[in-house]
């Protein structure tokens, strides 16, 4: 009897055990995902597609990327000390960390675009809706490639995502040469990159909607004019000087492209919704984001609007008043270059309305005293262009990493100046239409118009100076110096040691390799088939 009872209890207990063990074998081991998106559960609807497109935009906003776009500005010398003194002291090389981040982050944005493009293509959206989204993503990808091709010259041209993880792994030592034919590894020449960029921008231009400045969805999204303007700049860049990354030295570009650049900018002048903001200082004001002069900008929002700090930018922190001057903070990164500033004042005097927006030259301190630059910690004027609507006495605002101002990638004044430059280079003696762009910019700045007659060479110099004054600190100076073949002259011109910046090399060591950035050691060590740029 006892044993039978035991048996009964045993089966009861086994039953209990099985109730505890409420799972069957393989279902139990399927990994459950709660807080992340997987391909299995996403990209089903138009809303999902839009979310994927915005993710690509977000890559530009990433703090690892945006301010590094401006780093090379320090190289010719209009500005000093971005993050560290690597650039304006010319003390960078193939193992400089910032160069790696620029390279890596670029490919990150490209990969995000590559991932979302096939999703849009295979979605069941209406053709025109689909093409609108595709054009935005293809514009953004072209923009990143255009930055890269000007920095590095040659690089892998990646347009798809890896199908398996094996495709993305670093090739082993002694790998077969065919391995390096992969899109992820094969180095592509500058010309082919440009061909790709132009095709993409032409497609985007044809499929993007016209900007309406209607607020809402239009704000900050890529529109037709953005593609046209970028296309113009691509042509202009192709027409200018090119560094020969195989053998070193500068070469003339493709002169036929001047006319194409002129044509594209002319299209925007003749028929587009963009116009110059009447007052120079209003262009950069936070409250005036996405104004009619802005063709494309990177979007930020401060917490005062959103209630959260996550979409705020670091413009104030990076470009605000520097370190020990009036705040206890040391990480304001950019200071002005004194010789650049002085040469500007010498040329135009105080009549130039841009000076007071571009620089902070004195302020009233906490004790009510006026403090002017020129001594103590306030050696140079402060960079003030992007933060001129910040209250200088509000220390916490000056430290904000929560600033809503949108860094401008392309604005109409740039298009006007490009138009004058392209027409001047493409044509013979300057004519009235050649002067239209530069004079529009000069008039707004309170400067006298340039009048005919003027020689092609004199106008070239005038346009060059105008670009520096109008667009300084906006991320164009290095690219402009590269295109015009003026880089080494500009470095020499703005050699400024007043701020204690010690250049690593004497002037005569500086050679033409600085026209291009080195490909980072990490990239070459992972992919030995990459050739280093000549000189590096």
């Amino acid at each position, binding site marked *: 009897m006892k044993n039978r009872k035991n048996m009964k209890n045993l089966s009861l*207990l086994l039953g209990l055990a099985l109730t505890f063990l409420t799972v069957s074998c393989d279902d139990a081991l399927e*990994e459950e995902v709660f807080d992340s998106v997987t391909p299995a559960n996403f990209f089903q609807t138009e809303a999902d597609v839009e979310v994927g497109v915005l993710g690509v935009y977000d890559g530009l906003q990433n703090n690892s990327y945006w301010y590094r776009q401006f780093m090379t500005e320090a190289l010719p010398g209009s500005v000093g000390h971005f993050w560290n003194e690597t650039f304006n002291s010319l003390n960078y090389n193939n193992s400089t960390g910032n160069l790696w981040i620029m390279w890596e982050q670029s490919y990150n944005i490209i990969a*995000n675009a590559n991932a979302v493009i096939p999703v849009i293509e295979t979605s069941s959206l209406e053709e025109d809706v689909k093409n609108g989204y595709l054009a935005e993503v293809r514009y953004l990808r072209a923009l990143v490639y255009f930055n890269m091709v000007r920095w590095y010259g040659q690089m892998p041209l990646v347009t798809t995502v890896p199908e398996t993880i094996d495709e993305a792994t670093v090739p082993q030592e002694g790998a077969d040469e065919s391995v390096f034919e992969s899109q992820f590894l094969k180095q592509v020449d500058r010309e082919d990159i440009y061909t790709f960029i132009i095709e993409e921008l032409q497609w985007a231009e044809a499929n993007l909607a016209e900007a309406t400045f209607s607020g809402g969805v239009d704000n900050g999204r890529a529109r037709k004019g953005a593609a046209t303007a970028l296309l113009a700049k691509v042509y202009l860049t192709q027409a200018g000087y090119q560094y020969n990354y195989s053998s070193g030295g500068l070469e003339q570009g493709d002169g036929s492209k001047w006319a194409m650049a002129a044509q594209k900018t002319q299209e925007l002048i003749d028929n587009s919704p963009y116009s110059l903001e009447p007052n120079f200082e209003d262009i950069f004001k936070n409250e005036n984001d996405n104004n009619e002069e802005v063709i494309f900008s990177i979007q930020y929002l401060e917490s005062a609007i959103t209630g959260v700090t996550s979409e705020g930018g670091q413009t104030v922190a990076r470009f605000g008043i520097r370190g020990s001057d009036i705040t206890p903070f040391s990480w304001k990164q950019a200071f002005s270059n004194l010789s650049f500033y002085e040469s500007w004042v010498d040329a135009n005097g105080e009549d130039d309305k841009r000076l007071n927006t571009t620089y902070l030259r004195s302020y009233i301190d906490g004790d009510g005293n006026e403090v002017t630059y020129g001594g103590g910690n306030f050696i140079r004027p402060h960079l003030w262009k992007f933060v001129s609507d910040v209250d200088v006495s509000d220390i916490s605002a000056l430290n904000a990493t929560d600033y809503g101002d949108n860094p401008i990638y392309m604005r109409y004044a740039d298009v006007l100046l490009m138009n004058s430059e392209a027409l001047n280079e493409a044509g013979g003696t300057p004519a009235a239409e050649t002067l239209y762009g530069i004079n529009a910019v000069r008039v707004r700045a309170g400067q006298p118009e340039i009048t005919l007659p003027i020689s092609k060479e004199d106008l070239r110099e005038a346009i060059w100076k105008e670009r520096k004054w109008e667009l300084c600190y906006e991320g164009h100076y290095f690219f402009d110096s590269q295109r015009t073949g003026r880089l080494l002259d500009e470095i020499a011109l703005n050699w400024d040691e007043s701020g204690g910046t010690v250049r690593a090399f004497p002037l005569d060591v500086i050679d033409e390799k600085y026209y291009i950035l080195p490909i980072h050691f990490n990239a070459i060590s992972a992919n030995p088939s990459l050739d280093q740029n000549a000189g590096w």
Partner: protein
Amino acid sequence: MKLKLFVFLLSCFGAVPLWSQSTISGSITDEQNQPLPGVNVTIKGTSIGVAADFDGNFTINAEQGQTLVFSSIGFENEELVLGSQRTLSIVMIENTSSLDEIVLIGYGTARKSDLTGAISSVSSEDLTIRPVQSVGQAIQGQATGVQVRTNSAAPGGGTSVVIRGQNSVNSGSAPLFVVDGIPLTNIDNISVEDIESLEVLKDASSTAIYGSRGANGVILIKTKTGKIGKPKVSYSTRLTIENVTSDHNLMNGKEFAEIFTAWELAGGTDPSNLFYDGSSAVRPLPSEAGEGTDWFDEIIRTGLIRNHQINFSSGSETSRTSVSLNYTDHEGVIKGGDYSRMGIRLANSMDITPWLSTGVNLFVTHENQNSSGENTNSGSNTGTVNQVIKMSPALPIFNDDGTFTANNLPGAQGIENPVAVVSDLLDETRDWDIIGNFYITLNPFKNVSFKTSLGGDWNNRKRGQYNPTTTITGGLLGGSANILNRNTSHIVNENILSYSNSFNDKHRLDAVGGVTYEEQTVEEFSVSATDFFTDAFGYDNIDAAGVFGQPFSSKNKWQLLSYLGRVNYAFDNKYLLSAVARYDGSSRFGDGNKWGFFPAVSGAWVVSSEGFMENTENVINRLKLRAGWGRTGNQNIGVQQSLATFNVANYPVGTSIESGVVAGGLANTNLQWETTTSTNIGIDVSLFNMFDITAEYYQKTTTDLLLDVALIETSGTSEALLNTGELQNNGFEISVNTRVINTDNFKFNLKTDLFVNRNEIVSLVGDATQAWKIGNPLGATRGYVSDGIIQNQAELDAFSDENGVPINGLTIGEEKAIDFNNDGVLDIDDQRITFDPNPDFSYAISPSFSYKNISLDLFFYGVEGNQINNQTAAQFLSTNIIRNNLSADLIGNYWTPENPDATYPRLAGSNGFHSQRLFIEDGSFLRLQNIRLGFTLPQLGLFESTSIYFSAQNVFTITDYSGLDPDVNSTPGNNSFGVDRNSFPVPKSYTIGFQVNF
């Protein structure tokens, strides 16, 4: 039909008595004639048995000719063939040998003498001999082959336990802890006093029963349970005082202002523009700076630890209960840092019927840690201990208006005033922990038992931080609050069938089989806010804030399903054999690789039991040879590593934030276990009734290492976890226990341990860009080799490239490095292994003396041949850019043309290569970690035993290391250990303790 089956079953099990019996009764005592409760009395060859009551009395039905077996832990088994007697009087002989100790082996127990693998046991006496706060600290030096590194000496600071070397680069190297059957990764919340026994399973033949989690070793803990007998009460308390006795020898105000001025001048600063120019109270002239502020002194206090533990236990034949309460309160040596823990524990087991028993083990713990902002375990140059270095000593603590000063050194202005941090900053972590296990054991047949259990651990952690407006950060943000809440739920179900039998007195067989299932869910959320109108709320009224940060929440889950089995066979107590297998499935791995098989075999030969050894019995008391082989795994990786994921990447559109996503990780369906295959051979020998020696040699190879491998960056994904690479450990451990003097009144016992481990990276991808290198151990890193200070132009010219530009822009007075390939460029080809934190060997020596009721225990331990990367010194010896206070060693000892033999390079240099020479130091040390003098008072009325002790910890250390403490591990991690980065000062401490049992 039914009836037939029933009869068949009856005859099979044959337990129904078909003959008549008599009632036998008796009493059981020990050798001192004290009644012995709880002894098991069984009839040999049957499942019939009873337990003796409180007074050692028992009654059992048996018949003439049957053999009664009396057994009790700690006593030799007694057997008695029944004659005609009806009343018995049994004297049990105490078992003095430790060989018959029962040890935990995972899903079962075994006699110590039957072990075939490498298992170290630590008794509760050894665990509590030092007044420590955590189990990690308690096992330091108590088990050979176990390295315990202190991550932080701060209150509540953790330890890293590594058994027989690092097996992994990326996955965890921490062993698995199993407390009363519940696998845990953290046992800092368990009171050492609650532990009855602790076993360290070291080789694969022992740990393979834990399969995919056995590779790093397993530590099994059994907590105290009630015993049959009269109720017992024990109470213990102790009080510890801690003091910091060493500091960094930093400069005072005058010394610093002088050297700072010298540095400014050396760097070309205009003499009219010096920092210490007397322009304000915070920028005095060097001559007027005086002593200034010793910031270290300002944040240090005398630490205090109070500990109380009370335990009640009782047991009858059918029910055994133990309840305890423990309380620890630790005020750290840095102001503002403290830790307290209160734990309640219940262990109960009941026999419902002879074949059914049940029980519950339950811990409830509350921990409260207040950080003094010392930045435990982060390894970065932040936190209070670092702020002390960063602050200018020429700066007073307070401004004239009573507010805290802010550091004013150029380049370090954002650094918080450490006095403000320790007094005003809130950083509180509260943990609630429940560890519980409910089980039912069924003995349906003789020799068979089935145990099913359901348990787990549940943790809630809340961390609240508030930066008040009196601090710099808080001041700018108008107060800054942050709350993090994490819930962890870990559920374990185990179903184990055990069989144990012996045949013909020669063969013994133990078998275990089972199915287990575990799942863990972690949910987390955090909120942050700034801009409070008052500091009064701390983080307790976050909705009063003006600005809110991005809220965060997450959830993840993993599951593990396992089948396991083990057979142990012993022949004649001479030949022992064990075979183990476990089949584990984990949700963390790729679809095709979820399951792994982990087998092990081991055997032992008790040579001394052989006939041919009889003559040597007095010389070789016991000799046993062991060998084992096994395979174990490591599944200790994050979740969602095998899946393709997307990450949130929101973007503003107009005036609102719109959702965005971007690609996260790439899918890797091939992801699978790390597998460690290990071989162990061991010998246990006892000689001259004086020496007990255990020696082991092992070899472990880990393949399919889970490594974060860099992907081609053009793919947009920077790295992925892949199975690649191979790592090897081999090592030797020996432990010798010597009873030097063993008389009735005076005893002198000496225990010594020695442990040698060699670790080598056999293969690895991406070697060129990694700090580590194939053929070297983990943790070893490369760097440039220092080559002395450049004394003159000729030496500088020799250290220049082909254009005559000095390498790295160096100047005279800075340290050069060896350009091994003489190509005028210093690059990765000129780097060598310059840092190896792995010791040649480590050792422990524990002498203990006792005379009558006085005992003296000492504990020394040491490490030999390791290096420490002294990143703390790298800061206060920095002469290039001065952004913090400096070591007083620099005074008169930095290079100038007049002082060419100086130790340190010149002031305001650019970037010399002195790190290897100055900051990589020999970390060998020998420490008297503990000395303890104890008195046991004679039995006094109600009090069964009373003891009182005095002990001192961290008494002295013999070392060449220049930092505060050579036993340091600021950056715990498989590949980054041995770094001293602003480590919390290790105090010397003195304890008085008292214990009473009644």
